[in-house]
């Protein structure tokens, strides 16, 4: 029996002992028992958290002679964080409201009112409140998400525009670049690093498909890519919606004054790319991984995902790259990845200092410096691009992992015109959902039938049906208004409207497939 138990337990104990034996010796703690605490909620990965925590602890001790501890809160991706933060703020404000004498009972109306600028007393009280949720900072996520938090009154002015005016100049951090917002003019959020969007492709798969490497968004619509494109779901990530917006802008700028035609070309291009897609994944990082493993030939992704995957692939393949990331020329904007202080931050002073550190030269070096370079990271290379323009100088780029990258130059050819699509940003999501995501099987069946019939030129009627749109660009304002009205009427009206569009698209794709099969 003892022998039996030993045979069973010895491997278990050995396995358990292994991680403990391999656990590296902890460096002497640089923080003392009386250390301050900084609470940060973030979708950033372990690499970013590790490097910024390490560097800021040293900076804090050097500057203030005091220690600081970090508490990272991780509740999921950006959408989960926003939902969590907003729920907690609502609970905190509701509890405060209910504790006040003479206040009317808490209701759905009050819940709506405190979030809206037209919300009267509840809004006024919320904006005056200093009650927080025990979190100091939100670090990471898209500019859209941070701007929404600022509108709600959850992101508050950190005061850096006044304390560090030298950073907020066009030659250091422009307020806008190519129409994109790099920091909030009221100081409620600040871009910490940059992201561009582009195409990643697998060299072997491109060779196998016997086609040229994709260089522009349009290239992803080639018939040869049917079922070979990896896409992320724009309804999940504001950053990917931004990507689609860039594609729309690029197409609309090509047709000059004929905006209706530009819009139609763009939406139909999205439809064909979606028809070529293998899936719309909820995880944007899956796209370059699938391309690297050759399960997709190409995909749309954020620059640092593509570059990191390319580097890792080359490392495994004796220095030869398998995946390449390209920024479509005149087809991508520059997005900021911001940071903000939360209302009622328990350690506001340290939170502001952390933002200042991230925006300082020392902080900016961490984003792209190689390992063991002066001021660079010590464990992980991040491959993110610094937001400060003055970082792209020879004395810095010689230490950078992406030494040749200068996003301000690369994307300068692209002129983002916010008037064209800015107000329709959320609406783009609805368009992709109703035209491509919901009716995806029918969309793909129609495209397959068109391709089987010899391509769009051979079956013009089918292609015309495929390309039909329920509304033109000139009608967008009215449609947007209807959508807003339906939203105000309640979720149901909006759902009904979306169902009608999806159903119309499904019927249209079925008809297009039928026409293609008939050779028309």
């Amino acid at each position: 029996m003892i022998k039996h138990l030993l045979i069973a337990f010895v491997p278990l104990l050995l396995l358990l002992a292994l991680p403990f034996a391999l656990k590296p010796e902890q460096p002497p703690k640089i923080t003392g028992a009386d250390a301050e605490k900084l609470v940060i909620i973030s979708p950033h990965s372990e690499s970013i958290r590790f490097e910024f925590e390490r560097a800021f602890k040293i900076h804090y001790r050097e500057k203030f002679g005091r220690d600081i501890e970090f508490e990272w809160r991780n509740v999921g991706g950006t959408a989960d964080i926003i939902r969590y933060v907003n729920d907690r703020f609502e609970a905190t404000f509701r509890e405060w409201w209910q504790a006040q004498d003479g206040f009317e009972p808490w209701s759905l109306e009050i819940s709506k009112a405190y979030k809206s600028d037209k919300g009267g007393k509840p809004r006024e009280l919320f904006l005056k409140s200093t009650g927080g949720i025990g979190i100091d900072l939100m670090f990471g996520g898209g500019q859209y998400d941070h701007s929404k938090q600022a509108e709600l009154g959850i992101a508050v002015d950190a005061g850096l525009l006044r304390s560090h005016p030298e950073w907020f100049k066009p030659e250091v951090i422009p307020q806008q670049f190519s129409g994109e917002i790099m920091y909030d003019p009221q100081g409620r959020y600040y871009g910490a690093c940059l992201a561009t969007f582009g195409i990643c492709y697998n060299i072997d798969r491109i060779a196998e498909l016997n086609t040229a490497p994709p260089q522009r968004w349009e290239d992803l619509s080639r018939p040869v890519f049917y079922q070979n494109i990896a896409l992320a779901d724009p309804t999940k990530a504001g950053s990917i919606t931004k990507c689609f917006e860039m594609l729309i802008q690029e197409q609309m700028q090509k047709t000059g004054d004929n905006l209706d035609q530009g819009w139609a070309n763009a939406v139909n291009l999205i439809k064909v790319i979606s028809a070529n897609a293998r899936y719309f994944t909820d995880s944007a990082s899956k796209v370059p991984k699938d391309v690297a493993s050759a399960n997709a030939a190409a995909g749309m992704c954020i620059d640092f995902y593509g570059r990191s995957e390319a580097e890792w692939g080359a490392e495994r393949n004796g220095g030869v790259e398998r995946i390449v990331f390209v920024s479509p020329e005149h087809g991508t904007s520059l997005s900021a990845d911001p940071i903000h202080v939360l209302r009622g931050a328990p350690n506001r002073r340290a939170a502001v200092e952390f933002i200042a550190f991230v925006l300082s030269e020392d902080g900016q070096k961490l984003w792209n410096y190689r390992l063991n370079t002066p001021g660079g990271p010590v464990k992980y290379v991040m491959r993110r691009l610094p937001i400060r323009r003055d970082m792209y100088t020879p004395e810095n780029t010689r230490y950078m992992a992406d030494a040749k990258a200068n996003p301000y130059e690369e994307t300068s050819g692209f002129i983002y015109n916010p008037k064209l699509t800015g107000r329709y940003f959320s609406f783009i999501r609805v368009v992709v959902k109703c035209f491509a995501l919901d009716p995806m099987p029918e969309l793909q069946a129609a495209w397959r039938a068109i391709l089987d019939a010899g391509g769009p030129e051979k079956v013009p009627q089918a292609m015309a049906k495929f390309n039909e749109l329920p509304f033109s660009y000139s009608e967008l304002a009215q449609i947007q208004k209807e959508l807003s009205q339906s939203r105000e009427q309640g979720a149901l009206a909006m759902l009904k409207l979306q169902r009608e569009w999806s159903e119309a698209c499904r019927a249209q794709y079925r008809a297009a497939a039928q026409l293609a099969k008939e050779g028309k």
Partner: protein
Amino acid sequence: MKLKPMRMLVLSLLAVFFFIFLIMPIYSVVKNGLNPEVLAECFRNPIYLEGLLNSLKIALVTTVIVFAIALPPALVYDRYEFAGKKLVNTLMLIPMILPPFVGALGFMQIFGHFGVINTMLVGCGLPRVDWLGGEGRFWMVCIIEALHLYPILYLNILTALANVDPAMNEAARNLGAGRWRRFTKITLPMIRPGIFAGGTLILIWSFTELGTPLMFGYNRVTTVQIFNGITELETNPLPYALVIVLLAAAAGLYAVSRLLLGQSNTVAMTKGMAGSSAKKLKSWRALAAFAPFAVVSLAAGLPHIALVLTAFTKDWYSSILPREFTLMHFENALSHHMVTGSIVNSLKYSLLAMIICLIVGVTVAIVVTRWRPRGYQLFDTLSMMPLAIPGIIMAFGFLSMTVNFPFLRTYLDPIKNPLVLLGMAYAIRRLPYVTRAACAGLEQTPVDLEEAAHNLGASSWTTMRRVVIPLISANIAVGALFAFSFSMLEVSDSLILAHKEEFYPITKAIFELAGILGPGAWIACAFGVWTMAFLACTLAAANAILGKKMGSLFRF
């Protein structure tokens, strides 16, 4: 019937447990969808109706495949002795230890465009097949789910078969009944509780499974529609209404299964009387008996083999086997600062969950099969309900509950310490396994034995302790093993409820490691393999401890 005060107290405690840890979290989330008009919208939209129909198709096909996979080996195991029997039986449990996130990596290495199977096809001069996409997605989803879920049915059938009195088969044979007749007239009716226990779990699990269709991009199924809706940036009440529809449909499926399989009026009263009648096989017959186990285990174990190889490989691309091996990923994973803490945390959460599952699950089983007070079916349904709710909904529900109810936040705040909350969350999700296993055990245990104990003057508690529990201990052990190992691999609750690194369980640590750019997936894979080995050793150690008890059931 008037309930005794003690039973009243137990029922009240059960009701409170279900109210706080099941009803409240679900209500916290689905209240947004509790609108008749929004509910009606689910049925007006053909895309959602189609989703529901596809979910049903997946559930039915998967269950049929699982029966085809699990029943023959279980029968062979019960009837024959052959060389390597213990080993193949253990190998049949492989799917129970597949770690999350990185499991997909294993599938990609096998079924990917440049994966093992396609490389072999190209080697044979055949074209590559798009296993992960294209038209065959539906079947791939069903097959992969079946290969993951069959141990539940296999173990339940084995448990039931072990308690079929061989004398009954013997008697039938003496009366001239053939093999098929004995199987359909004696064995099948007698193992019905086991078939019901395992079959309903699989039917409902596959009906509400999210991960597999999501991995294959087979999106027009209800769970994926719920997931996509709930993770949208815009607020949308429809996914919450879809949860209610899914719950109702799952309850309907359960009711139909109960009607077809769950009536136990002819259940064999054999527990405690069965003996082994396995026939010894030699030469080619032993090999033939070995074959179904080998085929099923190999098919189910392919992703595991791929995972292990991936964790040790530097590069594996367009080749049948990896080209270069390394220990780098293990070194990076196991030396990471968050790993040791996560192991200790996972053990704490999972053990707590297992204990809660055992207490609540066995109590529910006794209420349902023995006490049968008015409305006892409600407890049965409540204990099965967690199976019908996507993990992410439950996780959001627990979070939302602690945010919105200050009195619960005081005791269950995940930021201060998520031990109790995660333990309860894991437990509620794993409760169906323990309840069903205990119910099956009790249904096969003759009430006469308990009556005899009472007649001899034993109190209810003594009868329970000395007669009932020992007789169903093997069933309980099976349920507990499922509860423990699936808790160790639980994803949704771990990701949503463990907010601080000091409280991360293993799955959250794997997720975090996977997020490291570049080699992250490989590092996570190495830690996943460690987890797999740890679970395998735990199951083996449990087998060693429970040796005789489990042996009498599984004949390990």
